[in-house]
């Protein structure tokens, strides 16, 4: 089977883009990715596009075809993927599959979300559609609420503290200072993070990722194609995806996310490595507790030790296993459909050595974990430096 490489990446600035819609955000990110790969749009065989809800945010569905029409090659196949907040990551997994199978050679894959034109209650309502709309949503649960329940469970079982949660926010805000594409460039103190306004007890404003506009895109291609290109390719060596009950009440555990465990195991097996081989990871910190739980699910730390790992600085940018060097969803921003793609872009930069002021030394393997809802979809990619 074919080997699959990332040869180009493109990102819009994350934040509020008053004059840009979903189609513009994706177009700008795509143009950058195409230029970065040093190819032409006519070299692309198709598009995979991650997007949660342009239908609700902008009253526009069928965005995949719009994306194709924005390029001269408007007839190529273009497919939208919706898997809640994992839409971007799953789009990359589908693009990988299209190349791996031999169906296509070169794919433009990305994601975008336009969110800031709705009010916060309206955005809460749209995001709420990713929870169970029969048995969760009508009872008033929100996403901060679901992760608050998980935080309470983790605190009760393992002694994780509110400080541990806030330390994730402080770390990710610090990392975002060095990322010009991040929504926030604002260092915060632990005291400030601890004392911000409560959203859903025990989670406060600094435990939650923001509402963001943004787009992200990658060019994936085959081993044969890269031979004629003057680029530094990064190989996708592991892909794993898993699902679970959409409603939190029906999960076996509240203190871990089984879909993360299964998806990462599949990715590690495909890459023929273990968690110890990973040099840097991007994890889905939609809420601070999610980063703590996920770093345990991925096998980086023992169950219950995720909070301690943040406290000890292991996951800091100068630690043994830096997590979310680009600021994470928390401080870089979380334009839903773009998120999983942007995570992979950070890994590509860290492996290629183009991460600027946040560049780590000697990154061989990077892992990206992107999830949907309260963990009902998880998708994990492992990227590797090309020897």
């Amino acid at each position: 089977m074919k080997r699959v490489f990332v040869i180009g990446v493109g990102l819009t600035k994350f934040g509020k883009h008053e004059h840009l819609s979903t189609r513009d955000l994706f177009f700008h990110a795509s143009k950058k990715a195409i230029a970065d790969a040093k190819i032409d749009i006519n070299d692309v065989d198709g598009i995979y596009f991650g997007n949660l809800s342009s239908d609700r945010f902008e009253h526009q569905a069928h965005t995949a075809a719009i994306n194709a029409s924005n390029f001269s090659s408007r007839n190529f196949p273009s497919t939208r993927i919706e898997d809640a907040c994992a839409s971007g990551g799953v789009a990359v997994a589908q693009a990988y599959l299209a190349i791996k199978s031999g169906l296509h050679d070169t794919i433009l894959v990305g994601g975008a979300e336009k969110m800031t034109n709705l009010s916060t209650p309206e955005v809460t309502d749209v995001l709420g559609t990713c929870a169970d709309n029969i048995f969760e949503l009508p009872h008033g649960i929100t996403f901060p609420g679901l992760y608050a329940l998980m935080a309470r469970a983790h605190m009760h079982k393992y002694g994780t503290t509110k400080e541990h949660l806030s330390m994730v926010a402080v770390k990710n805000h610090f990392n975002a200072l060095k990322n010009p594409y991040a929504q926030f460039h604002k260092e915060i103190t632990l005291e400030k993070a601890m004392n911000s306004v409560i959203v859903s007890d025990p989670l406060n404003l600094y435990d939650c990722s923001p509402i963001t506009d943004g787009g992200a895109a990658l060019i994936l291609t085959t081993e044969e194609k890269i031979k004629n290109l003057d680029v530094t390719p990064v190989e996708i060596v592991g892909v794993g995806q898993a699902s679970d009950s959409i409603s939190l009440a029906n999960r076996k555990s509240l203190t871990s996310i089984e879909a993360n465990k299964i998806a990462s195991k599949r990715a590690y097996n495909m890459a023929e490595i273990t968690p110890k081989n990973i040099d840097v990871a991007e994890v889905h910190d939609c809420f601070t507790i999610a980063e703590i739980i996920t770093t345990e699910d991925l096998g980086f730390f023992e169950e219950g030790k995720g909070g301690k790992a943040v406290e000890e600085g292991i996951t800091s940018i100068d630690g043994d296993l830096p997590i979310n060097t680009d600021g994470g969803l928390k401080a870089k921003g979380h334009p839903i459909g773009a998120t999983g793609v942007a995570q992979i872009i950070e890994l590509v930069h860290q492996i290629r050595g183009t991460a600027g002021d946040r560049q780590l030394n000697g990154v061989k393997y990077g892992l990206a974990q992107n999830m949907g809802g309260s963990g009902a979809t998880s998708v994990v990619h492992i990227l590797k430096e090309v020897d």
Partner: protein
Amino acid sequence: MEPPKIWRERRERYLGIGIICEDCQKKNFPKTRICPDCGSENVKPYKIAERGTLKYFTQIMNTGDELIFNTPYIVGLVELEDGIKVTAQIVDCDFKELRKGMKLEKTFRVLARNGKEGLIKYGFKFRPI
């Protein structure tokens, strides 16, 4: 939420109807057509228990349009006497008084109003015994 949807789901929502599997005897909520434990299609409706204990809880300060009238409100994960777990609002008590392991009972209340159609949506919540 649209009126046809409220109407369609009224039994499940008003009464708390899940399933019991006639092959493995496991109970599940919400209602599915296949037993999630053993895969059998031999399932029949089952009314979930009236009482349970509070596992975890949170107080929600920000929410979607339909429920804003109700904020702040408490949502808990309740483990019922029959082992089924549900997410529901906890009412008739103060957030500070809540404790893990508290005994609760099911009660019939207004869940949401001022929705797109101006309808009132009913369902179960839990209150301390």
